[in-house]
């Protein structure tokens, strides 16, 4: 394997020239005073604290609310670049929904021999309870967050499909609010496509998927949160607020006459659509984890009877499972009849002997991920690891090879952040948010740009010291 080539910087073509999407911003930046900008940056932090855009870090004191660091240099995407991403993402999301329907019904893709049966049958993310179930409106993944990375002018890769309960959209919205307040003049110079319609679109997508016989008038939509101590609680309450939906917890809900109802000041009221931010495992203690206090006992029966919409549908995790990721190009082709517009990152499945041998030999150049891990936990970044860490990981790989996949260390593109001494390049990724309705797919122009704040680091996760940037998609 070849060690990482030169990094692609999205802003600068050379130290003095900006790439075209950034040229107006770069000129503006050149005329600004660094001290003044640093002050703005501190203002932004105060603004986030006041609004309460905080998250709780797992394993830390519950009272310890942290801010995700925000960088005031925007990430800018040209109209034509975006159009391609949009087409590719839409194609992928369509394929994911077709795949989920198939895998819980006739399993044509397995019959056709395009993916191995074992990968489904032995997978914890595959829920037999969903076999033969038709989600209202035919939609499985109402919200998808597709993680994209870039390595060159025309090279975008999908790193991960988040088809369960992707988070981060509140940062997309609040980052933009912050930028609008701090740099109104920039928005009059550059034509940036707005992101603010997302909550209304989400509400509409969810309502459009209400069960056919819903209670009449406007469907009742509620957001199910694990509670105030959850790391993403801010986002749950933010989205409920922006959509005009109720924010409910397990204790507010019960089953009555075959419906899921919420306790209100006027008695129990049925819910038509539940946008749940609780994992499958905890959704229904009668069906899944019996210890769960976060779900609603019996909700799966109501769901199977077609009396509530659960968004995203239970069992969608099989589509973003890392063991399945390497089959995504096949999956896209199988269901859309076209080859995938967005590339996959080459992936070695360590369950296969040849791959394992290769991975062990090249460990120091690879990124190794746990098949069921998320949030950057349990991951090895070969080039950044010490000899000791490499050895420890090698032992883990040998013990349970099926638990891991490996990918080349991509030279993720960089976008500058503002540091004490001015602009400095840092690696980024991008999570656009895609909404699926029975008749439509909407992708908000922008998304969440995550940035590794440490020089040279490739890990952008907020739980591992990453920050965020506002993402600007320019009008065509």
């Amino acid at each position, binding site marked *: 394997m070849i060690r990482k080539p030169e990094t692609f910087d999205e802003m600068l073509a050379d130290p003095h020239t900006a790439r075209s999407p950034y040229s107006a911003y770069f000129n503006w930046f050149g005329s600004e005073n660094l001290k003044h900008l640093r002050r703005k940056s501190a203002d932004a932090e105060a603004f986030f*604290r*006041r*609004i*309460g855009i905080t998250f709780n870090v797992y394993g830390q004191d519950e009272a310890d609310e942290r801010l995700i660091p925000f960088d005031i240099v925007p990430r800018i995407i040209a109209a034509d670049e975006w159009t391609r991403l949009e087409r590719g993402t839409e194609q992928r999301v369509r394929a994911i929904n077709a795949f989920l329907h198939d895998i819980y019904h006739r399993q044509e893709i397995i019959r056709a021999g395009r993916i191995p049966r074992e990968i489904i049958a032995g997978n914890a993310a595959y829920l037999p309870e969903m076999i033969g179930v038709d989600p209202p409106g035919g939609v499985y993944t109402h919200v998808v967050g597709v993680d994209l990375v870039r390595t060159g002018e025309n090279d975008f890769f999908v790193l991960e499909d988040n088809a369960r309960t992707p988070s981060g959209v509140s940062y997309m919205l609040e980052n933009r609010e912050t930028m609008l307040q701090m740099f109104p003049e920039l928005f009059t110079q550059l034509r940036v496509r707005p992101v603010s319609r997302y909550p209304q679109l989400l509400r509409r997508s969810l309502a459009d998927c209400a069960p056919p016989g819903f209670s009449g008038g406007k469907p009742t939509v509620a957001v199910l949160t694990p509670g*105030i101590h959850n790391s993403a*609680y801010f986002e749950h*309450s933010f989205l*409920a*607020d922006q959509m005009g*939906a*109720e*924010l*409910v*917890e397990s*204790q*507010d809900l019960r089953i009555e006459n075959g419906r899921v109802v*919420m*306790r*209100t*000041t*006027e*008695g129990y*009221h049925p819910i038509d659509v539940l946008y749940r931010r609780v994992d499958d495992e905890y959704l229904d203690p009668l069906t899944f984890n019996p210890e769960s206090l976060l779900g609603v006992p019996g909700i799966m029966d109501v769901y199977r009877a077609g009396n509530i919409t659960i968004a995203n549908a239970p069992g969608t995790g099989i589509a973003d499972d890392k063991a399945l990721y390497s089959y995504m190009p096949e999956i896209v082709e199988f269901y859309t009849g076209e080859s995938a517009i967005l590339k996959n990152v080459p992936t070695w499945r360590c369950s296969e002997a040849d791959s394992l041998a290769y991975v062990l030999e090249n460990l120091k150049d690879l990124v190794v991920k746990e098949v069921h891990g998320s949030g950057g936990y349990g991951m090895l970044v070969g080039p950044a690891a010490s000899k000791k860490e490499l050895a420890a990981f090698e032992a883990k790989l040998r013990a349970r090879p099926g638990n891991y996949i490996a990918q080349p260390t991509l030279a993720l593109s960089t976008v500058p952040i503002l540091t004490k001494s001015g602009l400095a390049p840092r690696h980024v990724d991008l999570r656009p948010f895609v909404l699926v309705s029975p008749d439509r797919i909407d992708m908000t122009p922008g998304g969440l740009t995550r940035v590794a704040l440490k020089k040279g680091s490739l890990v952008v996760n907020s739980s591992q010291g990453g920050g965020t940037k506002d993402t600007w998609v320019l009008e065509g």
Partner: protein
Amino acid sequence: MMLGKTAGGLFWMFRYLERAENTARLLEAGWRIALTRSGAAPGEWQSVIATAGMTSAYLAEHETYDAAQVIDFLLRGKSNPSSVLNSLASARSNARTVRTALSSEVWEATNECWMEAKSILSRPISERNLHDTLAKIRFRSAVVRGALHGTMLRNDIFSFARLGTFIERSDNTARILDVKYYVLLPSASLVGTMIDNAQWETILRSVSAEQSYHWLNGGQTSPLGIADFLILDRRMPRSLSFCCLKIADNLAQLEQEYDSRKECHDMSDEICNRMFGSTIETIFEGGLHEFLSKSIADMGQLATLIEADYRFYR
């Protein structure tokens, strides 16, 4: 219609905000007395703790009623759930759970109030800085109230917020009077010593009413007058009557909005009838302490009924 949990969260958010303010007022009054009449200070601090309903919690940690210890206990005592800091933290935590019911201005004001309190109260406050500290906290909580009045719809959300405020306030005023009821009795007024005058002044100061009382009474201070003012005067925003009226108004709003009358409405009517059927003379005849004890118990029961009728928890 709203979630029962949300109604409960709003109710408690505003109870805690009111409680923080009341504790701040109590402290201010105690501090004032201690400054001007140093001989009366320890007794004054003792009754401040008693009014806050914290005597046993305080004595579990301290042996004497020392100014610095009382101030610290009431402002930021870890073991005191009603300390200013803990009350504001509870208010803010409730606000987080009901954030979808609050205007962004109310939420931000609450969050800022808590952030400022947390930062000022991160270390002990000296007597010298007490006044400024309390002024800042009062200012911040006034901003929350201003945002509530200026930006919230007058619907069930508003009613639950106001119910919390007035139930807490009524409880607080009744406690202040009850801890000091003996200095208001006719027998005590005969004594007419400096100490008693100081006590009357504290009572008025504890509810920020010394100025308005003097406006209305032209400088004539009498125990009967003070009791009348704090119990029956409907112009006085911290009097028991005023609180009763506001509670009845807000319950009537809910009755109308939900088109449903509950047990708490009957209880509230009963409390109002008793209050408005009294004169200060009949109250003293029947026993001031007995009247206040019943007021406190009635409000407690009313709060329990509201909680059940609107399904805060079940």
